[in-house]
């Protein structure tokens, strides 16, 4: 006697669970009961579970009977002729959805050749093993799983033609690749996902070759000529926005050219790009510090006496300017209203980015690298046909990572480029490498993809035959232009008088506790002092009471607030942080006295 549960509720028992389950399945396949039903027999508990609730992850499989898939040649032809739809197959019981539980009772064949009489189901396609993004990688069954994962992850960071209406969209922080191409070596998934409508890479000539050590440790060497012809060129878009906020008392911000008498007026030079409405004109080439939106705000404290006394209603300047390190061309201006009905203004900035040293590129197989050197076209190696590679990839990246599909694409891409066709590289269902090599041989190349190359600088023939071909490369969104940062002098924090932190604030790089220890260990005492001089302060200290005095700017004299005007005051050099901690001691109720002594 097997117990039967329907949606986790006990509903009865059955003498013969086999026929019971088979009956349910048969009815489901005949479409007499909803195909949302799944049955599962738990052998150790001798229990049948029937489920037809929602929120169960289910996946479709082809039903197999006596070792033969129900989806036969006749049906295949009908589907190809568009006479049958997916739903028709589902209704005919050729395809059914299994949930995780019912899968436990099923024996699923991965390929049709593997079918035996014991099998109950067949995968619709072996490609179902991988997800959508991983299916975009050609020859996935020729690579290490980890590399496939990295390849599909990195693909998501690639620049491309992300939306056809990009020119009228107000996207934050987006990139657009110029001349994005459809890959020569593609997969079924490229077709299914309309990849040619939103490509995100370029087909380039890659040679597996070292170049003066500038492509070691995963770096890549790029042809300057290729960059000038548009390789990896992209646009970076960033908006600057302003809103006319409303304040209590009917006061509002005002977008417009600020009057010269507003509080905090910058120089006229800073407003040079603004038109009469206080908004920058399109195609203006702006640099950091330039104002793109002129704005004034009402005075901060209405009750403050001097504002009333001076009569005039001083407005504050609150314009939007280009932040540190940014710049570019104004693309377009959007004037609209937000949910609260406030006037909202977006200025979309455009910046052209050509590849530079440090920009990140990747093939589709997790073989990422940054540009280590940009070589003039004339110095690049060339082949007998006069082909110069766009990119030099280091051979050391291959053995340890075992990304064989990287190498196969090189051959496949070369064959496709020369034969003028696209190569199908779908995982488990690709054009065999052997045939590609044969075709390449027929096209007049060496079948293994190598060619004789010549040194671009000396013209000497390279001794080894170089593996060279066409590959689809992606430019990733991590670009040096977004990260580069340096500082000699710059802003400091108000409280501690130490340098600010972070690129956006033009900050310094912290010399931390452990770094400090290295100076101590080397015994470089004075160098350490100099490094920490960034918050150096000269503090007047009272010699009588040992407390910190006050400097009177009018009298040009220091005095001690405790001991009065006539006490002896010495100016002592210390870090401002120490002066602060002395203040903190006082707030703790501890009186820190500085006892002064002559040094010599």
């Amino acid at each position, binding site marked *: 006697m097997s117990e039967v549960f329907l949606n986790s509720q006990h509903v009865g028992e059955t003498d013969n669970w086999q026929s019971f389950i088979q009956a349910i399945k048969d009815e489901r396949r005949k479409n007499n009961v909803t195909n949302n039903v799944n049955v599962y027999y738990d052998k150790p508990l001798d229990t049948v579970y029937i489920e037809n609730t929602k929120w169960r992850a289910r996946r479709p499989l082809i039903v197999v009977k006596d070792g033969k898939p129900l989806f036969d040649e006749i049906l295949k032809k009908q589907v190809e002729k568009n006479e049958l739809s997916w739903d028709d197959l589902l209704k005919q019981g050729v395809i059914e959805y299994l949930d995780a539980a019912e899968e436990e009772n099923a024996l699923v064949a991965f390929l049709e050749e593997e079918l035996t009489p014991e099998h109950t189901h067949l995968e619709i396609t072996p490609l179902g093993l991988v997800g959508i993004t991983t299916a975009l990688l050609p020859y996935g069954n020729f690579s290490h799983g980890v590399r496939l994962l990295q390849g599909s992850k990195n693909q998501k960071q690639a620049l491309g033609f992300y939306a056809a209406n990009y020119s009228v969209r107000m996207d934050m922080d987006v990139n657009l690749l110029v001349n994005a191409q459809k890959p020569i070596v593609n997969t079924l998934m490229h077709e299914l996902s309309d990849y040619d409508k939103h490509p995100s890479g370029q087909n380039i000539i890659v040679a597996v070759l070292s170049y003066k050590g500038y492509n070691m440790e995963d770096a890549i060497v790029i042809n300057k000529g290729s960059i000038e012809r548009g390789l990896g060129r992209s646009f970076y878009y960033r908006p600057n926005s302003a809103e006319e906020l409303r304040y209590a008392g009917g006061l509002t911000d005002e977008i417009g050219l600020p009057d010269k008498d507003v509080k905090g007026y910058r120089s006229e030079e800073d407003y040079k790009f603004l038109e009469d409405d206080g908004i920058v004109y399109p195609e203006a080439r702006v640099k950091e510090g330039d104002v793109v939106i002129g704005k004034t705000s009402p005075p901060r404290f209405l009750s403050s006496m001097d504002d009333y006394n001076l009569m005039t209603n001083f407005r504050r300047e609150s314009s939007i300017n280009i932040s540190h390190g940014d710049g570019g061309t104004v693309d377009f201006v959007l004037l609209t209203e937000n949910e609260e009905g406030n006037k909202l203004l977006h200025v979309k900035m455009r910046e052209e980015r050509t590849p530079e040293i440090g920009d990140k590129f990747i093939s589709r197989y997790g073989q990422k690298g940054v540009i280590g050197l940009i070589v003039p076209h004339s110095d690049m190696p060339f082949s007998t046909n006069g082909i110069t590679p766009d990119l030099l990839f280091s051979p050391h990246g291959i053995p340890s990572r075992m990304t064989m599909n990287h190498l196969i694409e090189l051959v496949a891409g070369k064959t496709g480029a020369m034969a003028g066709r696209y190569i199908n590289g779908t995982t488990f269902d690709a054009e065999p490498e052997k045939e590609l090599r044969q075709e390449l041989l027929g096209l007049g190349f060496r079948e293994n993809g190598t060619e004789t190359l010549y040194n671009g600088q000396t013209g000497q023939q390279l001794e080894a035959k170089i593996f060279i071909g066409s590959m689809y490369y992606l430019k990733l969104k991590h670009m040096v232009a977004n990260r580069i940062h340096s500082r000699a002098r710059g802003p400091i924090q108000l409280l501690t008088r130490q340098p600010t932190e972070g690129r956006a604030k033009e900050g310094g790089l912290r010399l931390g506790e452990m770094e*400090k*220890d*290295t100076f*101590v*260990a*080397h*015994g*470089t*005492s*004075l160098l*350490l*002092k100099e490094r*920490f*001089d960034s*918050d*150096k302060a000269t503090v007047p200290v009272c010699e009588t009471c040992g407390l910190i005095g006050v400097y009177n700017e009018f009298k040009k004299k220091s005095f001690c607030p405790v001991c009065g005007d006539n006490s002896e005051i010495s100016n002592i*050099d*210390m*870090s401002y*942080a*120490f002066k602060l*901690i002395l203040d903190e*001691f006082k707030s*703790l*109720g*501890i*009186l820190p006295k500085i*006892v002064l002594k002559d040094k*010599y």
Partner: protein
Amino acid sequence: MVESLVKEYTGKLPVKLLGELKDKLTAQKINKTRAKKIFETTLQEYLDAQVAPGEAVGIIAAESIGEPGTQMTLNTFHFAGVSEMNVTTGLPRIIEVFDGRKNIATPMMDVYLKAPYNKGKDIRKLALLIKQSTLQDIIKEVNTDLMNGKIEVEILSAKLDDHGLAQAQLKKILEKGLKGVNVKIDGSLITLAPSSKESNLNDLYKLKEKLKKIHMSGLKGVTHVLPVKRDEEFVIMTAGSKLKEVLELEFVDETRTVSNDIYEIAENLGIEAARTAVMNEVFKVINAQGLTIDERHIVLVADMMCVTGGIKGITRYGIVSEKASVLARASFETPIKHLISAALTGEEDYLNSVVENVMINQPIPTGTGMPKLSTK
């Protein structure tokens, strides 16, 4: 001739070096000027090898131990075959040693044996003498006779022999452990009857539980023993450390038996032994990880921990609390506590150590900050 040179250089060169020179030079026929030159060169080398004044040895030691510490893996080591018996190693163990913890995670001993015993004969028996055993270890069956208010315990006589106990001895142990209970031993059957007449069922059950835990033989606290063959002899490794008791056993080689409990070593063998133990314990971990750290860095730390005659860990309660400077102490954990207590006693800070001078941004008194200018 060499003698006189040795006399001349006594005080300039360490005793060990002098002895070495004496041995080597007397063996060879050498004239006086040459011997003198050798002594002079040795002295120069010795002086050159010394740390220069103002070298920041503490920070260098800290960095030299700390950097390889980041590469350490494996926190515990398990013995094959013995479940539960494992040893803390890696960074946790180093932290434990340097903190000077009183209760370490896995106290252990390596018990070496004297000559006739270390050949492996009866090694199990010797091991059992060290291991703590309770009555439960030899019980076969326990029957509670509710009618007569008695408990009958059947024991395994063979196991009793293993523990080196005679029946009379067992009776004594039981009588001592269970006060107010009549003990009768007949072969492998022990009958226990509470002597008081008003005993109830509850008491009987309590007695049943209690008798299982009666300590019978071995050292309390030594939970596991594991005889292992090391080179040509057998050594007993133990989980749980009772150094004093183990050293008193007549078959134990007290010159080589060690514990990994630093405090126990300090108590029983003195602070110098504890200092060596600190060094050995740290080295053990470092060598097991395949790292190399110069021994002098660890010697320095061990010296700092033991210099007061007791063990002081590298913690705010240990050697950091001994720092003279208030600011230096406050900059290392719990600043407010240190500042308040300093304020209460009106402490003065002479600002003559490294941390304080970094805080006030003055040259630190190490390295190039050491020499001072003096004029007439």
